[in-house]
């Protein structure tokens, strides 16, 4: 466990030494504020809930999370430090976990910094804070799933732009599988069971279900299995094409 912490600490200093973490946090805060207050009409709705705020997260993460995670492995590959890291007495899993946790912490910090929104709804009305808490948990899990996917694509290439684009496309697929316009299209010609099966692969389905305030074990299992699967694949890629 200790090497995991050491690697995570190094990654975090890396994020904050370069402007990546700051840029991500500032842009995330600006955009989430803009979309929930200006676009979705947070005040006009007159409801004490963060529904409009969380509804934008799948879309904001789609571009911002790959931007945070794209350097995770491709940078190591480009600089040649992968050789250094993997000849240290650490297992590839420790390195993968350390890097993943560090980038997840950056996203988590950005989420924590949205607390003024939470204060605002509590000042204006009396929202169900349990639901809001569940919303934050769901948002964090979703970010984790996107990040794990980005880790996987980042391990495939030394080019960060390629890592970014491929992970945006994969994440977009995970969103669209449950996006109402797409599921409505499917309903016309596919069996309802099939539509449900496709929608079950989507982050939207599970994210929205958690946002109702109930953290269902199925939703939890979904996000955790996406994370574990993507990180496992990362491990396979890192181990098999180390010298590339």
């Amino acid at each position, binding site marked *: 466990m*200790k*090497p995991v912490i*050491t*690697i995570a*600490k*190094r990654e975090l*200093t*890396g994020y904050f*030494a*370069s402007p990546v973490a700051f840029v991500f946090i500032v842009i995330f805060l600006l955009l989430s504020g803009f979309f929930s207050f200006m676009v979705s009409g947070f005040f006009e709705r007159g409801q004490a809930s963060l529904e409009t705020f969380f509804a934008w997260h799948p879309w904001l993460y789609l571009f911002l999370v790959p931007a945070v995670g794209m350097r995770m492995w491709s940078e190591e590959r480009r*600089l*040649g*430090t992968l*050789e*250094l890291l*993997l*000849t*240290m*007495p*650490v*297992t590839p899993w420790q390195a993968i976990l350390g890097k993943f946790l560090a980038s997840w912490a950056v996203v988590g910090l950005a989420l924590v910094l949205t607390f003024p929104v939470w204060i605002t709804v509590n000042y204006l009305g009396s929202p169900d804070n349990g639901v809001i808490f569940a919303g934050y948990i769901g948002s964090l899990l979703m970010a984790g799933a996107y990040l794990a996917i980005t880790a996987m694509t980042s391990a495939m290439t030394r080019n960060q732009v390629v890592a970014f684009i491929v992970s945006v496309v994969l994440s977009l697929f995970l969103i669209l599988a449950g996006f109402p316009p797409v599921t409505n299209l499917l309903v016309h010609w596919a069996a309802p069971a099939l539509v449900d099966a496709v929608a079950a692969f989507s982050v939207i389905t599970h994210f929205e279900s958690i946002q109702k305030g109930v953290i269902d074990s199925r939703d939890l299992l979904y996000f955790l299995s996406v994370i574990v699967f993507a990180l496992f694949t990362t491990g396979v890629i890192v181990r098999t094409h*180390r*010298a590339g």
Partner: protein
Amino acid sequence: MIQVRNLKKTFGPKVAVSGVSFTVEKGEVLGFLGPNGAGKSTTMRMITGFIPPTDGEATIGGYSITEHPIEAKRLMGYLPENAPSYADMTVHGFLSFAAELRGLSGSARQKAVARAVETCFLENVLHQSVETLSKGYRHRTCFAQSIIHDPEVLILDEPTDGLDPNQKHEVRTLIRKMGEKKAIIFSTHILEEVEAVCSRAIIIDRGTIVANGTPAELKRRSAQAGAITVRLGEGSSKPVQSRLEALKGAGRVQLLGEQPLSLRVFPAKQSSSEDLAKAISALCAQERWQLLELHTEEGRLDEVFRGITLPDTKANKAAA
């Protein structure tokens, strides 16, 4: 300490390393020579556990690098080719990170960092970020990382690449000093380095070991080795050459220059260069030739290297 048995590595149809075996004991400095693309770096990467071998095995201090990678990696320090390091960290931060990954903490870590900094002359740049450093400093930073835990086994891929002559000298001195207590493998293109530092050298070409011995042994394989160079103050070439050829134990005589007259006498087969040298000096005394120089060639490593690693016979002849 280091045992390499029949290591093989293929990348698709391309064979990078085919069946390399050697051992390195404590107190030995093994020079790893070979032309570019001969498989030096690939072999080192397999020994350090960065890439898995297709076949064969490497063990460090008894631990197989494939079966017990963590234990094996703990025993060694590694300087990869091109000396990579995290560009966004300071030298101090980078070395602390390396020490922490090596399981050092608290005051032991601080001591280890201070010692490595001192050994590699990094005091001036300690709090500078790695990306602002010159190549020499970057190289030494990565070198410092490899010795931070005072490992028993040190594997260095071109440790003097990109250093200025003074730094090269420092690093060589350092390797020789550390070689008294550690098992060291280092690869290089620079042949004089091998003579200056190594207790043993291996020449690798197209994935196989083509020569293995002490630098002196290797030099003896040179075509010139054992030949005797004679320089005379006066005399004309033709009669001197024929007199030398007529000597007992002398083989071919090669004229090197006319003014002053210098010749190289190769000993005939199965005769020693010592006897030949005695015979030549006796001849000079007898003929009252002014002898300016008489010495036995030790042979040259670059010539041996070229002779072994250049495939075509024309180049071989040129080297001889």
